[in-house]
């Protein structure tokens, strides 16, 4: 019983942290219909940058904001490559991911004095200082602090994103993904909307990187591997599993999708799957989610609306 509860808590904790990235990918993939691979680079970008800043004694909450801003900057470049230089979405993502590989390494080497990993176990993070310190470390013998802080963060981000999507700018973003011609006929440059969407999406990815790094107390390049698949799977699982629940917002579905996805992985590991097979399993679950959502027509709108002409 104890073991199962602990697994549940870890699943919830990780699911919530990675949900932040899934929210970002929801914007680029679901709303803008832009398969953005830059996330594999911007997630560790946020993680490594935060790690180094925390090592230097910067406030961990401020680090979250800095990570978000830098992620937005990277997303802006992805958008500019696509909109201004007319490079295809997949290639833009690959380019930015490749750029991030170098940028991340340079930051690590300069920040740590030549090491390939930034460690900051005994420094202040969002989980052990200020707000985090107010929450009891464990409740009833279970370590819950990380879960609670992550939950608060996810809820705040979700509410902000929901509010944004109701503003003029947010609705224009939704219109851009649905029907570019419509946006043009509104007298708006749909390129600006796309760049903005990619910026916000990658901001969330870098933010998630910062949170995950702070929970682990370390950050390295490896953290980014497989993030695109993880985030896309969360989005697609969430949107297809909860499609019928009409009162639920898409952002909630995505968060639950992320938790579900982590749950699947935890169960497999608990049943004795060796960790080296983990990425293989991730790809398998993602494939299953894609096939499943095709049946439900989640991405069906692309054939009905966006590419009608």
């Amino acid at each position, binding site marked *: 019983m104890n073991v199962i509860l602990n697994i549940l808590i870890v699943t919830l904790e990780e699911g919530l942290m990675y949900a932040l990235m899934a929210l970002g990918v929801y914007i680029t993939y679901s709303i803008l219909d832009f398969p953005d691979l830059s996330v594999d680079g911007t997630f560790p970008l946020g993680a490594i940058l935060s790690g180094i800043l925390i090592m230097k004694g910067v406030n961990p909450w401020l680090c979250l904001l800095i990570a978000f801003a830098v992620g937005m900057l990277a997303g802006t470049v992805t958008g500019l490559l696509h909109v201004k230089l007319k490079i295809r979405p997949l290639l833009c993502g690959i380019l930015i991911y490749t750029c991030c590989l170098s940028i991340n390494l340079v930051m690590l080497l300069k920040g740590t004095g030549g090491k390939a990993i930034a460690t900051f176990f005994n420094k202040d993070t969002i989980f052990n200082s200020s707000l985090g310190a107010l929450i009891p470390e464990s409740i009833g013998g279970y370590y819950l602090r990380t879960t609670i802080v992550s939950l608060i963060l996810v809820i705040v981000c979700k509410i902000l994103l929901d509010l944004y999507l109701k503003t003029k700018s947010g609705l224009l973003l939704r*219109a851009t993904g649905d029907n570019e011609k419509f946006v043009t*006929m509104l007298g708006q440059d749909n390129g600006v909307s796309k760049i903005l969407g990619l910026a916000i999406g990658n901001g969330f990815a870098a933010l998630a990187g910062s949170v995950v790094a702070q929970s682990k107390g370390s950050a390295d390049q490896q953290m980014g591997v497989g993030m695109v698949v993880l985030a896309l799977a969360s989005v697609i699982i969430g949107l297809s599993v909860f499609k019928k629940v009409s009162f639920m917002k898409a952002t909630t579905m995505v968060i639950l999708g992320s938790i579900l996805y982590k749950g699947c992985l935890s169960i497999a590991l608990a049943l004795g799957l060796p960790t080296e097979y983990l990425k293989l399993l991730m790809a398998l679950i993602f494939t299953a989610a894609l096939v499943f959502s095709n049946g439900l027509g989640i991405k069906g709108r692309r054939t009905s609306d966006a590419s009608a002409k």
Partner: protein
Amino acid sequence: MLQLNNIVKIFNKGTVDENVLFNDFSFNVNKGDFISVIGSNGSGKTTLLNLACGTMQPDSGSVIFEGKDITKVSEYKRAKFIGRVLQDPRMGTCGSLSILENMALSDNKNKAYDLSPVINKKRVDHYKTLLEQCGMGLENRMGVKVGSLSGGQRQALALIIATMTDIKMLILDEHTAALDPKSSETLMQITDKIVKEKQLTTLMVTHNLRFAVEYGNRMVMMHSGNAVMNLSEEEKKQTGIDDILDKFNEISIEVGN
């Protein structure tokens, strides 16, 4: 109001498929005109509209709007003063958004798309009044996703949306072509009503010869990049639909359509 001067437009330039559509073509739209344009496929009707809207750039020549050269002005900037309804009912509206959201977004056309809320409750009654003139009951379905409307309803909404802000010119690109006869008749009547009420300068491309004869104060027949017929309201009345059809058949046989 709108002048296309000495337009040259060549498709697939420099290839074996090179097609010179317009060679020194000029076209003039006066303020208050409602021009219907007819012509066979490939005659240059849609290209004419695309040049006016900025979807395409001419190879040479100029596009003048109210005395200003807008040849290099991008499509989205021109959209601020040129409203447009396209053939495909799905293009003029956003299917994943509700009727209210579509209208609220369009209502904001000439203002900034910032972080303020998009729906202003005070404007909702105004939207409903606009929708009432279609007589389709859309005003009672404001929360419905536009994607679930029929083609005719969606096109009527697209027309309302295109004309709800202050535009100087309306461009209709075969906007009734995808609809059934009854719906296209209804839409054409709504179009005429709005154009007259708002005194919009209108350029309409249509395949429906009867619409072309019945509506508007000028009729132009395009053929291989030239206006082979250009009838004023008076001349149009004297020329029957059969005469126009004869002329149409004559040029169609020439190109083997």
